[in-house]
Protein backbone atom coordinates (compact mmCIF):
# COMPACT_ATOMS: atom_id res chain seq x y z
CA UNK A 1 0.00 0.00 0.00
CA UNK A 2 3.02 2.33 0.17
CA UNK A 3 2.90 5.13 -2.42
CA UNK A 4 6.61 5.95 -2.10
CA UNK A 5 8.53 2.89 -3.25
CA UNK A 6 11.85 4.57 -2.43
CA UNK A 7 11.16 4.88 1.28
CA UNK A 8 11.47 1.71 3.31
CA UNK A 9 9.50 2.90 6.35
CA UNK A 10 6.74 1.48 8.52
CA UNK A 11 3.09 2.05 7.53
CA UNK A 12 2.30 5.68 6.78
CA UNK A 13 0.77 8.00 9.36
CA UNK A 14 -2.63 7.79 7.65
CA UNK A 15 -2.63 4.02 7.91
CA UNK A 16 -1.59 4.05 11.53
CA UNK A 17 -4.18 6.71 12.35
CA UNK A 18 -6.86 4.63 10.66
CA UNK A 19 -5.80 1.55 12.59
CA UNK A 20 -5.76 3.48 15.86
CA UNK A 21 -9.18 5.03 15.17
CA UNK A 22 -10.50 1.58 14.36
CA UNK A 23 -9.16 0.23 17.63
CA UNK A 24 -10.72 3.03 19.63
CA UNK A 25 -14.05 2.50 17.91
CA UNK A 26 -14.17 6.02 16.44
CA UNK A 27 -14.72 4.82 12.88
CA UNK A 28 -17.18 2.19 11.81
CA UNK A 29 -15.47 -0.91 13.15
CA UNK A 30 -14.03 -3.55 10.82
CA UNK A 31 -16.10 -6.67 10.12
CA UNK A 32 -17.15 -8.19 13.40
CA UNK A 33 -15.32 -11.26 14.49
CA UNK A 34 -16.57 -12.43 17.87
CA UNK A 35 -20.16 -11.69 17.03
CA UNK A 36 -20.26 -13.07 13.49
CA UNK A 37 -19.05 -16.45 14.56
CA UNK A 38 -21.03 -16.30 17.76
CA UNK A 39 -18.53 -17.41 20.35
CA UNK A 40 -18.30 -20.86 18.86
CA UNK A 41 -14.96 -20.22 17.25
CA UNK A 42 -12.68 -21.96 19.69
CA UNK A 43 -15.26 -24.31 21.12
CA UNK A 44 -14.97 -28.05 21.23
CA UNK A 45 -17.87 -30.30 20.18
CA UNK A 46 -18.36 -30.94 23.89
CA UNK A 47 -18.73 -27.25 24.53
CA UNK A 48 -21.22 -26.83 21.70
CA UNK A 49 -23.22 -29.82 22.87
CA UNK A 50 -23.33 -28.52 26.41
CA UNK A 51 -24.40 -25.08 25.25
CA UNK A 52 -27.23 -26.45 23.15
CA UNK A 53 -28.43 -28.60 26.03
CA UNK A 54 -28.31 -25.71 28.48
CA UNK A 55 -30.16 -23.40 26.10
CA UNK A 56 -32.92 -25.94 25.49
CA UNK A 57 -33.40 -26.86 29.12
CA UNK A 58 -33.12 -23.36 30.57
CA UNK A 59 -36.02 -22.06 28.49
CA UNK A 60 -38.09 -25.02 29.57
CA UNK A 61 -37.20 -24.52 33.24
CA UNK A 62 -38.18 -20.86 33.14
CA UNK A 63 -41.41 -21.65 31.31
CA UNK A 64 -42.43 -24.40 33.72
CA UNK A 65 -41.65 -22.15 36.68
CA UNK A 66 -43.77 -19.34 35.26
CA UNK A 67 -46.59 -21.69 34.26
CA UNK A 68 -46.65 -23.38 37.65
CA UNK A 69 -46.56 -20.05 39.44
CA UNK A 70 -49.44 -18.66 37.38
CA UNK A 71 -51.39 -21.87 37.93
CA UNK A 72 -51.06 -21.54 41.68
CA UNK A 73 -51.99 -17.89 41.45
CA UNK A 74 -55.16 -18.42 39.44
CA UNK A 75 -56.01 -21.92 40.66
CA UNK A 76 -56.13 -23.34 37.12
CA UNK A 77 -53.92 -26.20 38.08
CA UNK A 78 -52.70 -28.04 34.98
CA UNK A 79 -53.70 -25.76 32.11
CA UNK A 80 -51.17 -22.94 32.23
CA UNK A 81 -48.29 -25.28 33.07
CA UNK A 82 -49.14 -27.31 29.99
CA UNK A 83 -49.35 -24.21 27.80
CA UNK A 84 -46.07 -22.87 29.13
CA UNK A 85 -44.29 -26.18 28.60
CA UNK A 86 -45.11 -25.87 24.90
CA UNK A 87 -44.05 -22.23 24.81
CA UNK A 88 -40.86 -23.06 26.72
CA UNK A 89 -39.97 -25.82 24.28
CA UNK A 90 -40.45 -23.38 21.42
CA UNK A 91 -38.34 -20.76 23.19
CA UNK A 92 -35.62 -23.35 23.73
CA UNK A 93 -35.57 -24.14 20.03
CA UNK A 94 -35.49 -20.41 19.31
CA UNK A 95 -32.45 -20.12 21.59
CA UNK A 96 -30.68 -22.90 19.72
CA UNK A 97 -31.60 -21.30 16.40
CA UNK A 98 -30.14 -18.00 17.62
CA UNK A 99 -26.99 -19.90 18.50
CA UNK A 100 -26.46 -21.28 15.01
CA UNK A 101 -28.34 -18.86 12.78
CA UNK A 102 -26.14 -17.09 10.27
CA UNK A 103 -25.88 -13.59 11.66
CA UNK A 104 -26.03 -11.48 8.46
CA UNK A 105 -29.54 -12.70 7.65
CA UNK A 106 -30.85 -11.36 10.94
CA UNK A 107 -32.22 -7.99 9.98
CA UNK A 108 -30.29 -5.78 7.58
CA UNK A 109 -31.05 -2.92 10.00
CA UNK A 110 -28.01 -3.93 11.99
CA UNK A 111 -25.66 -3.10 9.17
CA UNK A 112 -26.60 0.56 8.77
CA UNK A 113 -24.53 3.58 9.69
CA UNK A 114 -24.78 3.17 13.43
CA UNK A 115 -22.52 0.19 13.46
Amino acid at each position, binding site marked *: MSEEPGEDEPPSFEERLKAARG*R*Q*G*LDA*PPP*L*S*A*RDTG*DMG*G*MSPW*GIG*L*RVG*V*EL*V*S*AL*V*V*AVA*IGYGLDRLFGTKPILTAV*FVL*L*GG*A*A*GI*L*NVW*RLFAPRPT*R*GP*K*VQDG*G*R
Partner: protein
Amino acid sequence: MAAGGSIDALGQFKLEPALGHIGASVYFTQANLMMVVAGLLTFGLLWLGMRPRAMVPGRLQAAAEMAYETVLGMCTETIGPEGRSFFPFVFTLFFFILFGNLLGVFPLFFTFTSHIAVTLALTVFVVVLVTVVGLRLHGWHFFSYFVPQGVPAVLLPLLVPIEVLSYVSRLISLSVRLFANMMAGHVMLEVFGAFVVMLGAAGVIFWLPAAFSLAVNVALIGFELLVATLQAYVFAVLTCIYLHDAVHLH
Protein backbone atom coordinates in the same frame (compact mmCIF):
# COMPACT_ATOMS: atom_id res chain seq x y z
CA MET B 1 -11.87 -37.54 50.67
CA ALA B 2 -12.69 -41.25 50.58
CA ALA B 3 -14.25 -41.60 53.97
CA GLY B 4 -15.49 -45.08 54.82
CA GLY B 5 -14.87 -46.46 51.35
CA SER B 6 -17.33 -44.15 49.58
CA ILE B 7 -16.48 -41.15 47.48
CA ASP B 8 -17.73 -37.87 48.89
CA ALA B 9 -17.59 -35.88 45.67
CA LEU B 10 -19.81 -33.01 46.78
CA GLY B 11 -18.35 -32.40 50.23
CA GLN B 12 -15.80 -30.06 48.71
CA PHE B 13 -18.52 -27.53 47.92
CA LYS B 14 -19.64 -27.16 51.53
CA LEU B 15 -19.33 -23.67 52.92
CA GLU B 16 -17.28 -23.32 56.08
CA PRO B 17 -16.72 -20.13 58.07
CA ALA B 18 -13.36 -18.57 57.39
CA LEU B 19 -11.18 -16.31 59.54
CA GLY B 20 -11.98 -17.98 62.84
CA HIS B 21 -14.52 -16.55 65.31
CA ILE B 22 -14.90 -13.20 63.59
CA GLY B 23 -15.74 -14.90 60.30
CA ALA B 24 -18.10 -17.34 61.99
CA SER B 25 -20.04 -14.57 63.74
CA VAL B 26 -20.78 -12.74 60.47
CA TYR B 27 -21.05 -15.88 58.30
CA PHE B 28 -17.96 -14.95 56.33
CA THR B 29 -17.30 -18.21 54.48
CA GLN B 30 -14.30 -19.40 52.51
CA ALA B 31 -16.25 -18.54 49.34
CA ASN B 32 -16.40 -14.91 50.44
CA LEU B 33 -12.74 -15.05 51.28
CA MET B 34 -11.91 -16.29 47.78
CA MET B 35 -14.04 -13.54 46.27
CA VAL B 36 -12.01 -10.99 48.19
CA VAL B 37 -8.82 -12.69 47.03
CA ALA B 38 -10.01 -12.67 43.40
CA GLY B 39 -10.80 -8.98 43.65
CA LEU B 40 -7.46 -8.21 45.23
CA LEU B 41 -5.62 -10.22 42.58
CA THR B 42 -7.35 -8.30 39.77
CA PHE B 43 -6.57 -5.04 41.49
CA GLY B 44 -3.00 -6.16 42.14
CA LEU B 45 -2.46 -7.20 38.53
CA LEU B 46 -3.48 -3.77 37.29
CA TRP B 47 -1.92 -1.68 40.04
CA LEU B 48 1.41 -3.44 40.37
CA GLY B 49 1.52 -4.17 36.64
CA MET B 50 1.02 -0.59 35.57
CA ARG B 51 3.25 0.99 38.24
CA PRO B 52 6.44 1.00 36.15
CA ARG B 53 4.64 2.81 33.28
CA ALA B 54 7.43 1.65 31.02
CA MET B 55 7.43 2.28 27.29
CA VAL B 56 8.64 -1.27 26.77
CA PRO B 57 6.55 -3.23 29.26
CA GLY B 58 7.89 -5.90 31.54
CA ARG B 59 6.11 -9.18 32.03
CA LEU B 60 3.51 -8.03 34.54
CA GLN B 61 2.86 -4.79 32.72
CA ALA B 62 2.48 -6.67 29.44
CA ALA B 63 -0.03 -8.97 31.12
CA ALA B 64 -1.97 -6.02 32.49
CA GLU B 65 -1.98 -4.24 29.11
CA MET B 66 -3.01 -7.41 27.32
CA ALA B 67 -5.85 -7.94 29.78
CA TYR B 68 -7.02 -4.40 29.23
CA GLU B 69 -6.82 -4.53 25.44
CA THR B 70 -8.40 -7.96 25.12
CA VAL B 71 -11.49 -6.96 27.08
CA LEU B 72 -11.66 -3.56 25.38
CA GLY B 73 -11.49 -5.29 21.99
CA MET B 74 -14.22 -7.68 23.07
CA CYS B 75 -16.45 -4.75 24.07
CA THR B 76 -15.93 -2.58 20.99
CA GLU B 77 -16.10 -5.46 18.53
CA THR B 78 -19.19 -7.05 20.01
CA ILE B 79 -21.23 -4.09 21.23
CA GLY B 80 -19.96 -1.49 18.79
CA PRO B 81 -18.58 1.99 19.54
CA GLU B 82 -20.92 2.27 22.52
CA GLY B 83 -19.13 -0.70 24.02
CA ARG B 84 -16.53 1.57 25.59
CA SER B 85 -18.99 2.74 28.21
CA PHE B 86 -19.60 -0.85 29.30
CA PHE B 87 -15.91 -1.72 29.40
CA PRO B 88 -15.40 -1.29 33.18
CA PHE B 89 -18.35 -3.54 33.91
CA VAL B 90 -17.31 -6.29 31.49
CA PHE B 91 -13.69 -6.08 32.66
CA THR B 92 -14.67 -6.47 36.30
CA LEU B 93 -17.02 -9.32 35.51
CA PHE B 94 -14.49 -11.15 33.35
CA PHE B 95 -11.64 -10.95 35.81
CA PHE B 96 -13.74 -11.69 38.86
CA ILE B 97 -14.95 -14.91 37.22
CA LEU B 98 -11.57 -15.72 35.67
CA PHE B 99 -9.69 -15.45 38.95
CA GLY B 100 -12.46 -17.26 40.77
CA ASN B 101 -12.23 -20.15 38.32
CA LEU B 102 -8.44 -20.24 38.27
CA LEU B 103 -8.08 -20.05 42.06
CA GLY B 104 -10.27 -23.10 42.34
CA VAL B 105 -7.75 -25.21 40.44
CA PHE B 106 -5.24 -24.85 43.27
CA PRO B 107 -5.41 -27.42 46.05
CA LEU B 108 -7.11 -26.37 49.30
CA PHE B 109 -8.63 -23.36 47.57
CA PHE B 110 -12.33 -22.93 47.05
CA THR B 111 -14.12 -22.32 43.73
CA PHE B 112 -16.85 -19.82 44.46
CA THR B 113 -18.13 -20.03 40.86
CA SER B 114 -19.13 -23.64 41.55
CA HIS B 115 -22.11 -22.35 43.55
CA ILE B 116 -25.21 -21.51 41.57
CA ALA B 117 -26.08 -18.88 44.15
CA VAL B 118 -23.00 -16.94 43.04
CA THR B 119 -23.40 -17.42 39.29
CA LEU B 120 -27.14 -16.73 39.43
CA ALA B 121 -26.51 -13.53 41.35
CA LEU B 122 -24.02 -12.43 38.70
CA THR B 123 -26.46 -13.34 35.94
CA VAL B 124 -29.36 -11.52 37.58
CA PHE B 125 -27.14 -8.46 37.74
CA VAL B 126 -26.27 -8.80 34.03
CA VAL B 127 -29.87 -9.32 32.88
CA VAL B 128 -31.19 -6.46 35.02
CA LEU B 129 -28.43 -4.20 33.72
CA VAL B 130 -29.19 -5.18 30.10
CA THR B 131 -32.88 -4.47 30.63
CA VAL B 132 -32.22 -1.13 32.31
CA VAL B 133 -29.80 -0.12 29.53
CA GLY B 134 -32.38 -1.05 26.90
CA LEU B 135 -35.13 0.87 28.68
CA ARG B 136 -32.98 3.93 29.22
CA LEU B 137 -31.75 4.10 25.63
CA HIS B 138 -35.01 3.28 23.89
CA GLY B 139 -37.76 3.92 26.41
CA TRP B 140 -40.94 2.00 25.67
CA HIS B 141 -39.58 1.25 22.23
CA PHE B 142 -37.36 -1.34 23.96
CA PHE B 143 -40.30 -3.72 24.06
CA SER B 144 -40.26 -3.95 20.27
CA TYR B 145 -37.30 -6.23 20.95
CA PHE B 146 -39.83 -8.91 21.76
CA VAL B 147 -41.72 -8.45 18.51
CA PRO B 148 -40.01 -10.29 15.65
CA GLN B 149 -39.90 -8.40 12.38
CA GLY B 150 -41.82 -9.44 9.28
CA VAL B 151 -44.28 -11.67 11.08
CA PRO B 152 -48.06 -11.70 10.44
CA ALA B 153 -49.92 -9.99 13.27
CA VAL B 154 -51.99 -13.13 13.82
CA LEU B 155 -48.95 -15.00 15.07
CA LEU B 156 -47.79 -12.28 17.47
CA PRO B 157 -49.78 -13.51 20.51
CA LEU B 158 -47.90 -16.77 20.14
CA LEU B 159 -44.48 -15.41 19.27
CA VAL B 160 -44.18 -12.58 21.81
CA PRO B 161 -44.44 -14.93 24.83
CA ILE B 162 -41.86 -17.19 23.21
CA GLU B 163 -39.51 -14.25 22.74
CA VAL B 164 -40.04 -13.12 26.31
CA LEU B 165 -39.35 -16.63 27.58
CA SER B 166 -36.24 -16.79 25.45
CA TYR B 167 -35.13 -13.50 26.98
CA VAL B 168 -35.79 -14.59 30.54
CA SER B 169 -34.17 -17.98 29.99
CA ARG B 170 -30.82 -16.19 29.75
CA LEU B 171 -30.97 -16.05 33.52
CA ILE B 172 -30.80 -19.82 33.72
CA SER B 173 -28.62 -20.59 30.72
CA LEU B 174 -25.88 -18.11 31.60
CA SER B 175 -25.71 -19.06 35.27
CA VAL B 176 -26.11 -22.82 34.84
CA ARG B 177 -23.43 -22.96 32.14
CA LEU B 178 -20.75 -21.47 34.38
CA PHE B 179 -21.87 -23.29 37.51
CA ALA B 180 -22.19 -26.70 35.80
CA ASN B 181 -18.82 -26.46 34.10
CA MET B 182 -17.00 -25.56 37.28
CA MET B 183 -18.81 -28.07 39.44
CA ALA B 184 -18.47 -30.95 36.98
CA GLY B 185 -14.73 -30.40 36.65
CA HIS B 186 -14.18 -30.41 40.39
CA VAL B 187 -16.35 -33.47 40.90
CA MET B 188 -14.30 -35.31 38.27
CA LEU B 189 -11.08 -34.28 40.00
CA GLU B 190 -12.41 -35.45 43.33
CA VAL B 191 -13.60 -38.80 41.95
CA PHE B 192 -10.33 -39.62 40.24
CA GLY B 193 -8.37 -38.37 43.24
CA ALA B 194 -10.36 -40.74 45.44
CA PHE B 195 -9.65 -43.56 42.97
CA VAL B 196 -5.93 -42.99 43.41
CA VAL B 197 -6.19 -43.26 47.20
CA MET B 198 -8.59 -46.21 47.24
CA LEU B 199 -6.79 -48.25 44.58
CA GLY B 200 -3.41 -47.43 46.06
CA ALA B 201 -4.54 -48.72 49.43
CA ALA B 202 -6.14 -51.84 47.98
CA GLY B 203 -2.92 -53.67 47.17
CA VAL B 204 0.02 -53.88 44.79
CA ILE B 205 -2.06 -55.30 41.92
CA PHE B 206 -4.09 -52.10 41.81
CA TRP B 207 -1.14 -49.76 41.60
CA LEU B 208 -1.29 -49.68 37.80
CA PRO B 209 -4.92 -48.51 37.67
CA ALA B 210 -4.09 -46.10 40.49
CA ALA B 211 -1.30 -44.63 38.39
CA PHE B 212 -3.72 -44.38 35.47
CA SER B 213 -6.17 -42.44 37.66
CA LEU B 214 -3.38 -40.13 38.70
CA ALA B 215 -2.49 -39.53 35.04
CA VAL B 216 -6.14 -38.76 34.30
CA ASN B 217 -6.12 -36.26 37.15
CA VAL B 218 -3.05 -34.54 35.76
CA ALA B 219 -4.78 -34.24 32.39
CA LEU B 220 -7.94 -33.02 34.11
CA ILE B 221 -6.05 -30.22 35.83
CA GLY B 222 -4.88 -28.98 32.44
CA PHE B 223 -8.40 -29.30 31.12
CA GLU B 224 -9.68 -27.36 34.12
CA LEU B 225 -7.35 -24.49 33.31
CA LEU B 226 -8.83 -24.40 29.80
CA VAL B 227 -12.40 -24.57 31.07
CA ALA B 228 -11.75 -21.89 33.69
CA THR B 229 -10.53 -19.42 31.08
CA LEU B 230 -13.06 -20.40 28.43
CA GLN B 231 -16.05 -20.11 30.72
CA ALA B 232 -14.99 -16.70 31.99
CA TYR B 233 -14.58 -15.63 28.37
CA VAL B 234 -17.95 -17.08 27.34
CA PHE B 235 -19.67 -15.32 30.23
CA ALA B 236 -18.11 -12.00 29.26
CA VAL B 237 -18.80 -12.41 25.54
CA LEU B 238 -22.42 -13.36 26.14
CA THR B 239 -22.80 -10.34 28.41
CA CYS B 240 -21.45 -8.23 25.55
CA ILE B 241 -23.85 -9.83 23.05
CA TYR B 242 -26.80 -9.18 25.35
CA LEU B 243 -25.66 -5.59 25.81
CA HIS B 244 -25.37 -5.28 22.03
CA ASP B 245 -28.95 -6.48 21.64
CA ALA B 246 -30.10 -3.97 24.25
CA VAL B 247 -28.20 -1.09 22.66
CA HIS B 248 -29.13 -1.83 19.05
CA LEU B 249 -32.39 -3.81 19.42
CA HIS B 250 -32.11 -6.83 17.09
